[in-house]
């Protein structure tokens, strides 16, 4: 059984805040729920499914309590930053199986006002078995991605200038997104002149840490037809993990290599059918590796592929049109924003950064840490049911 065309994202809302010391994560989630339900033309009483990640291990129960919801489907799957992309698939499967009818997916975080050092703080260990062989060596998140970047440069001659092109194009998109945190244009030289955090990655190769949150509403394709906005149909989805296994890991393989082909096969589409790519951009190297592993260019050619404005909203391969985690927002787990921007673009509601052709969008979330262990979730959305 396939998920293709069975459900749709019918409500999407990105909380406008980027710094909110006066708000709690639960307040951000409640406001986001209000925004997404209003967008869908549904009421809170219609919600019978609830997904979230990032709080305590049973945080979804407290969230239901906070919103006084009694859902029949609860999902707090935490795959790191890709969680909310995976939640859309889980919600769709639950709806298709008749477990629930309207699923609300929520995210809220005050990572910036809590002064969380995500990329360079501590060692990213949680006391799991593999951590004993990693945390003694001080492996920051940025350092772990940097090791993948260093290897890519060694094997394929990829340069810091090429990685910088990703940051430059993404900033150009942020300048066209009124809600984005950073609007001032940057150049390749600016990226290269920013300090090295962990070689070869510069400060401007790294995403920010902001506050923020958002919400999505998913329901059946049948119900979607009668709602307020044009549905973004779920056409394909897949999730996977890549880890160090028993010690023979390929540091340039990301989960997208498994999930991209599966999701595209489910959707019945090829690479040329994809009008918009929303790729988790924790770091510039994350985008490059994900594009390669999804098959938008051959392995090793990502450096050349991202140059010349190819990823720009008005270029041949529009990618991360909202300004991404590099320049719009990144409250720690960015997956939900990939889907929100995809929905906006498919509807034609993206304003100055609107892509011209807008039939199919591919979202790919990465969670955890590339070069150690990470999850990937691909979601393909389309304007037609497929």
């Amino acid at each position, binding site marked *: 059984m396939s998920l293709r065309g069975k459900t749709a994202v019918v409500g999407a809302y990105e909380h406008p805040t980027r710094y909110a010391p006066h708000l709690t994560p639960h307040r951000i989630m409640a406001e986001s729920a209000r925004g997404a339900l209003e967008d869908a033309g549904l009421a809170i009483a219609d919600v019978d499914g609830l997904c979230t990640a990032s709080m305590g291990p049973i945080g979804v129960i407290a969230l239901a309590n906070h919103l006084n919801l009694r859902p029949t489907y609860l999902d707090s799957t935490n795959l790191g930053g890709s969680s909310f992309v995976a939640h859309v698939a889980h919600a769709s499967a639950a709806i298709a199986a008749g477990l629930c009818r309207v699923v609300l997916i929520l995210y809220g975080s005050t990572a910036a006002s809590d002064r969380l050092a995500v990329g360079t703080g501590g060692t990213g260990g949680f006391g799991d078995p593999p951590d*004993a062989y990693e945390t003694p060596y*001080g492996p920051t998140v940025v350092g772990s991605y940097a*090791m993948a970047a260093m290897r890519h440069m060694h094997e394929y001659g990829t340069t810091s200038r090429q990685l910088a092109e990703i940051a430059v194009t993404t900033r150009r998109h942020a300048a066209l997104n009124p809600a984005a945190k950073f609007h001032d244009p940057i150049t390749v030289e600016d990226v290269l002149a920013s300090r090295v955090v962990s070689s070869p990655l510069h400060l401007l190769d790294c995403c920010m840490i902001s506050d923020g949150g958002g919400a999505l509403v998913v329901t059946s394709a049948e119900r979607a037809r009668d709602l307020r906005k044009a549905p973004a149909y779920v056409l394909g989805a897949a999730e996977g993990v890549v880890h160090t296994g028993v010690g023979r890991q390929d540091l340039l393989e990301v989960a997208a290599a498994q999930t991209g082909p599966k999701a595209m096969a489910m959707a019945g589409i090829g690479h040329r059918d994809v009008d918009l790519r929303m790729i988790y951009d924790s770091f510039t190297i994350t985008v490059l590796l994900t594009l390669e592993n999804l098959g938008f260019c051959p392995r090793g050619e990502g450096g050349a592929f991202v140059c010349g404005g190819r990823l720009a909203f008005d270029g041949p391969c529009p990618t991360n049109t909202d300004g991404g985690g590099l320049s719009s927002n990144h409250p720690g787990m960015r997956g939900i924003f990939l889907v929100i921007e995809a929905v906006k673009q498919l509807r034609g509601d993206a304003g100055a950064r609107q892509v011209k052709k807008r039939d199919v969008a591919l979202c790919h979330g990465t969670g955890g840490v590339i070069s150690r262990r990470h999850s990937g979730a691909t979601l393909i959305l389309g304007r037609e049911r497929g």
Partner: protein
Amino acid sequence: MSRKDYKKPLPRIDEENRWFWEACARHELVLQRCGGCGELRFYPRGLCPACLSSSVEYVRSSGRGRIHTFTVTYQSQAPGFRDELPYVMAYVDLDEGPRVLSNVVHTPPEEVKIGMAVEVVFEDVDEDLAIPRFRRASER
């Protein structure tokens, strides 16, 4: 050196990995080979992920290998490491096969290169615990 003076993160030692860290305290780097299917594995586990056998053989590593990739880290909040910036993190390909995460020490960061030969060096935390790291070795 005593454990209370050691600022960097320590491994959490449990029933599945105690033997590995006891070997490190003797300045031996030891790998596991499955007694059932023969797969050499890192990191240590009680059961072989390939065949689920709990039969284990221990293989002493030469402690020699080459750098697969590395990074020089200039910003880190990791306890102990934040006082020693910059430091080098690396994946080392051991001669026996496994690719392990570690630090490159006693080697100027600017001289670290992918493919460089390295050898294990143990940093004693106290008499019961030592952390394996790597330093540049003479070319073979």
